[in-house]
């Protein structure tokens, strides 16, 4: 999320609104927004309707694999504040780019919490979509 904040001007230059979706409670979401200084639109999905509609998986096993523990340890050692687990830790996330016609242009469902698309992948997908259609492969 911090990387998205750093690259926000590049997304805005590509006419892209970043929309963060969470199943957390409104009070948790307000605290999170204040702590992260995120300038994104934040929508809440307490019933996880959107998570299901976009096919995002639920796996406690993959959410707490050794790889995930190692990543958390790295973040904490690098000085990242540990906020604890807020809500159901088995729900996995994902990233989707939707164009102004409501068509999905990029779909990425996380296999575990450390698995997210890179900023360069997201920007490349947006830049590719911005090209005239006769230039697309």
């Amino acid at each position, binding site marked *: 999320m911090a990387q*998205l904040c750093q690259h926000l001007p590049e997304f805005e230059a590509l006419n892209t609104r970043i929309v963060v979706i969470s199943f957390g409670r409104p009070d948790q979401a307000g605290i999170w*927004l204040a702590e992260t200084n995120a300038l994104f639109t934040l929508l809440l999905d307490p019933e996880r309707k*959107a998570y299901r509609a976009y096919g995002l998986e639920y796996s406690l096993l993959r959410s707490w694999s050794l790889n995930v523990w190692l990543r958390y340890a790295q973040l904490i050692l690098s000085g990242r504040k540990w906020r604890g687990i807020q809500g159901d830790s088995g729900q996995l996330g994902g990233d989707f780019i939707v164009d102004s016609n409501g068509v999905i242009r990029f779909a990425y469902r996380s296999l575990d919490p450390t698995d997210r698309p890179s900023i360069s992948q997201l920007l490349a997908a947006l830049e590719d979509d911005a090209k005239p259609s006769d230039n697309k492969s």
Partner: protein
Amino acid sequence: MNPVNLQPNDIAPDVTLLGLDGQSVPLARMWQDRQIALLVFLRHLG
């Protein structure tokens, strides 16, 4: 295994979510006004 497997060129599902003020917000509103939306589904707020 989740049966939903959305791919590029599929129509994005529209569902009604909540804003921080508790008001209903259609997800499709995020990609209206000729704007592209990057939907970032969080795992949790920790």
